[in-house]
């Protein structure tokens, strides 16, 4: 349904014949399995047939249900299993995890295959490290697979593994590729768990952002992470144990960094959008700031923002109406 190229020529007679045969084989297997479902045949034979069909089509959601129904029949204690009361049946678990993995390999975005895995994880004693390794493998194949990222976070929640691992994993993925929005998102979930001294953390995160935006100014991911960082720090500075002064210093440094980028990339609309955003943050801080900003400082930033928005209307006409909206709503 997605990403299937239209062939230049209609299928040949041989191709059509092969497809018909494949379809017939598949449909016959479906009919057998659905018949077994209808008569509530919960035998091992059915389980095997269901596994075979799932290999062909991991998106056939009722099949995953059938597997679970049969497991519940075979292992009555499964009905009351929970994260607090797990079954220690590694052989049974491994069969299910293998079928799930086969399903994921067949369709990395199969909701059914991923959910079955989580269902197993909540009821059987698991090797959580092994699950994280599996996630690593799948994210190597597709670093943006949100099913995998979600599953990884779900496993993390269920394991006692330190959040720092997740923070460090996000570093690994970002270093591989700055355009990995999923990794930056993951980082935003775990940055509060870095265990670092907050000033060192701010410096580090700003350095990550700076690296990315100077290397690939057209890639959105680091710019959105910048937006996350400065919004998060603004709402959390008290709890994080930094003073508003320190926050404002970081903000001013960031403004300076982006302005220096703009000097070498004068048409970078992301740099311009970033400055507009940062001046907005500056406005939000002003109300809370104890020291006084000189009027000229404020005027300079406001003038810069207005100038940038005017420029963006010309440079980025696709988004003109958004810029006009922002201009209309300037304080």
């Amino acid at each position, binding site marked *: *349904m*997605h*990403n*299937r*190229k*239209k062939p230049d020529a209609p299928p040949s007679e041989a191709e059509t014949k092969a497809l018909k045969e494949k379809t017939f084989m598949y449909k016959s297997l479906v009919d057998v399995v*659905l018949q077994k*479902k*209808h008569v509530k045949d919960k035998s091992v034979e059915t389980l095997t047939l269901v596994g075979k069909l799932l290999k062909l089509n991991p998106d056939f*959601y*009722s099949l*995953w*249900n059938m597997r*679970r129904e049969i497991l519940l029949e075979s292992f009555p204690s499964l009905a009351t299993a929970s994260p607090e009361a797990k079954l220690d049946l590694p052989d049974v678990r491994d069969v299910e995890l293998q079928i799930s993995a086969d399903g994921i390999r067949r369709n990395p975005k199969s*909701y059914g295959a991923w*959910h079955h895995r*989580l*269902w197993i994880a909540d009821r059987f004693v698991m090797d959580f490290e092994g699950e994280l390794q599996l996630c690593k493998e799948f994210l190597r194949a597709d670093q*943006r697979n*949100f099913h995998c*990222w*979600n599953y990884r*976070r779900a496993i993390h929640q269920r394991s006692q593994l330190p959040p720092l691992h997740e923070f460090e994993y996000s570093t690994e993925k970002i270093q591989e590729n700055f*355009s990995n*929005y*999923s990794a930056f*998102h*993951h980082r*935003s*979930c775990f940055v509060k768990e870095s265990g670092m001294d907050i000033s060192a953390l701010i410096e580090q995160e700003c350095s990550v952002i700076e690296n990315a935006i100077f290397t690939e100014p057209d*890639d*959105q*991911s680091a710019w*959105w992470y910048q*937006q*996350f960082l400065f*919004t*998060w720090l603004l709402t959390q500075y008290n709890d994080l144990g930094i003073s508003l002064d320190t926050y404002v210093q970081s903000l001013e440094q960031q403004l300076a960094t982006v302005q220096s980028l703009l000097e070498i990339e004068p048409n970078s609309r992301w740099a311009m959008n970033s400055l507009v955003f940062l001046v907005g943050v500056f406005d939000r801080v002003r109300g809370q700031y104890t020291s006084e900003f000189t009027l000229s400082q404020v005027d300079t930033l406001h003038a810069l923002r207005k100038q940038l928005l005017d420029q963006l209307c010309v440079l980025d*006409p*696709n*988004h003109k*109406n*958004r810029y*006009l*909206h*922002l201009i*209309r709503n300037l304080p």
Partner: protein
Amino acid sequence: MSGVYWGLTALALLGVDLHSESVSSSILEWIFSCFDEASGGFAGNTGHDPHILYTLSALQILALYGKLGDIQREKVISFVASLQQADGSFAGDKWGEIDTRFSYCALSCLSLLGALEGGHVDKEAAVRFIVRCKNFDGGFGAVPGAESHAGQIFCCIGALSIAGALEEVDADLLGWWLSERQCDSGGLNGRPEKQADVCYSWWILSSLSILGRTEWIDVQKLADFILQCQDKDDGGISDRPGNMPDIFHTFFGICGLLLLRHFDEHPLDAGITMVDVDPTYALPRRIVEQLGLYAQSFPPAGK
């Protein structure tokens, strides 16, 4: 069931009178063959298991036919209600997969059945869960902590629209993020750095429409992209130019063009009058109006 919904609604939007189709009675018969008496839910096909996704699709098709009155209303309501969890989220079925897609399906089902009020589900808790799925970029993911994705965003915005809770949305921020989904090709992607895909013309345009910010993208470029995705041989629409068309992308491509008001400037010949689509319910607007369905939206942000 969803495939039938995409196909029939696409036909309805093209102004086809579904009742005149001889296949209609078999479709309705088939829909009811997918109803599971025990649970009150509808399955994706005969002999399959009930699920909230296909329950919504079934109700949507029945709404197209004006046959919502023919269902076992209390049973369907209790199926939907049974899926709400303690944290306000909704599972897809008894097996417990949680996803904001199901929050949307649940609220839309109940709204279609006139059962949103009446305490069948905890609406406030449903909203609270959706808000927990809101991210720093203003977008929404499948579960709390999940990355923002245009499809999930539609589901959350749609759900909040039905629940009348759009004030939970930072419309300027989300509007910005959604507007940045427009690629050089003019098409929209679902997340940063991904490829454009026609179906996002729906997920994103409907969200922007509800938020009153459709004009924050270049509408002409998007319309051109959708049109480029139409297969000149068989008339279907694919995910991107040169790919195989399918019913899913055809439906969402048509919806996208309707939300872009494309047919106002470019009416179709052969006497086809396009029917407007409702961005919250993904049904013809006149059906939504006939049923008196509630949907909150923001007025256009203006230029």
